[in-house]
């Protein structure tokens, strides 16, 4: 299978602190790589390096076998899109949904001015929102709907790699499920390649093909999903997995905390 993204020996330092330490990572086309780790492990920094928001101190990135330079071209930026954790902060509150979607479409010259309206409606339909949402503002939507709008905006420019940085952490469980289902459908319909960051192992299990684990700026494991969840290689992965509270399945005494061994 062809490689979509290659991260070669990327290092990022903030002052004396090493946020990313010699990261090597590959993402195959049309697959989802789940990136897990605790807070401060460097997940988001890596996402930002890939999106071009942080220039790494060392290392190189390749997208579809083309090197990504420090100063990216408009075409390179278009190819990598990102969905953030908090949809309230990633949508401009003073722009209507029409403006939010049109801005991206026109900037990257995806469609001509005459077709913007039609394309925007199609995009909303794809994320299960009605066309009349175009005239509304972000605050008129619920958190889940806002995240759908952010997804529509990210997909509007037809990226080849979608980075989702904790896209469902701010949402309720029932809404989380519908957003994940949407991402799953879009992935198969549009043949997306995704880098999915989450600290929630249940979410990672639901979306990923492969799982990468980060700790203190280092990549400790990259494994196919099934192997990761049943027989993780790194001791740290095992520690992470065994810390997840489980729903009781058997009729045991219940109530008291019974950690999984």
């Amino acid at each position, binding site marked *: 299978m062809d490689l979509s993204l290659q991260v070669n020996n990327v290092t990022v330092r903030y002052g004396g602190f090493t946020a990313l330490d010699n990261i090597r990572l590959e993402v195959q086309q049309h697959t989802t790589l789940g990136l897990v780790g*605790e*807070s401060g492990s460097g997940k988001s920094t890596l996402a930002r390096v890939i999106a071009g928001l942080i220039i790494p101190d060392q290392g190189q990135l390749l997208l579809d076998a083309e090197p990504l330079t420090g100063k990216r071209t408009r075409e390179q930026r278009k190819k990598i899109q990102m969905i953030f954790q908090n949809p309230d902060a990633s949508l401009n509150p003073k722009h209507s949904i029409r403006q939010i979607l049109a801005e991206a479409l026109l900037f990257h010259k995806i469609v001509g001015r005459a077709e913007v309206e039609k394309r925007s409606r199609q995009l909303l339909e794809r994320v299960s929102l009605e066309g009349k949402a175009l005239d509304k503002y972000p605050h008129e939507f619920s958190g889940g709907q806002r995240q759908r709008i952010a997804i529509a905006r990210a997909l509007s420019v037809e990226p080849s790699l979608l980075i989702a940085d904790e896209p469902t952490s701010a949402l*309720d*469980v*029932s809404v*989380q*499920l519908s957003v*994940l289902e949407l991402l799953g459908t879009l992935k198969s319909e549009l043949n997306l390649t995704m880098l999915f960051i989450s*600290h*929630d*192992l*249940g*979410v990672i*299990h*639901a979306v990923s093909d492969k799982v990468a684990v980060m700790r203190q700026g280092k990549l400790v494991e990259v494994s196919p999903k099934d*192997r990761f*969840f*049943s*027989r*993780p290689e790194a001791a740290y992965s*095992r*520690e*992470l*997995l*065994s*810390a*997840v*509270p*489980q*729903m*009781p399945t058997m*009729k*045991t005494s*219940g*109530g*008291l*905390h*019974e*950690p*999984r061994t």
Partner: protein
Amino acid sequence: MATTPVLEIEDLTLTAKTQEVLVKDVSFSLNQGESLGLVGESGSGKSLTLRAVLGLLPRGIEQTGGVIRSAADSAMVFQDPRGALDPLCPVVKQVAEVVYYRQRLSRKASRAAALELLHMLGLPDSLRKTDRYPGQLSGGQCQRIVIAMALACKPGILLCDEPTTALDVTVQKQIMETVGRLQQELGFAMIFVTHNLAVAAAMCSRLAVMKKGEIVEQGSTLSVLQEPQNPYTQMLINSVLPVPELAPEGSGVLWT
């Protein structure tokens, strides 16, 4: 275990200034040493119910009906430990201050009691020599400090408002174990608000499910989770994303 309830809530109704009813006819009781999990999605009134017990309703929200009968003091652990601590005051001093006012000890005895509490919560003994500011501690350590401050009030009821939501899973597990152990040692009753059903199941013997300000179902943890009567409870259970069981360590080297 004594069966006298330490807390009884009957038909609690909370209304906002806009006449919007935020919590409607909520009733439950809590026995000594018992733990009740209050689960539901955002906006379901879980936190407001807790705040009503504490008598700390946000401005503009009033209790318009019902009674809260409480036979014990209550103390609260908040979701965001950094937000619950004074960033400009060293942590031992903060805990000692609570001990000083609530237990009416001398300054010196307060400090000793505070250090003992911190030791009980598994915080490093180096705090004895050098006090630290909240910013110098990790999120999990800050949450332990907050729990120590709540316990310094010697509460009969500990109210926990999503105490582990802001924490990483490994830290969450440690905090859950610590709270569970302390409950056994000190015998306080607990109301544990969370949106994570698995956490609630691990911590509580009874669950109450809230939706839009009302309790739609309550009962023992296992019966609620295994034989949910309400479609909303069922929906919540269905939206839990499972993590598969780990293969036991060292078992079988081959995988196919």
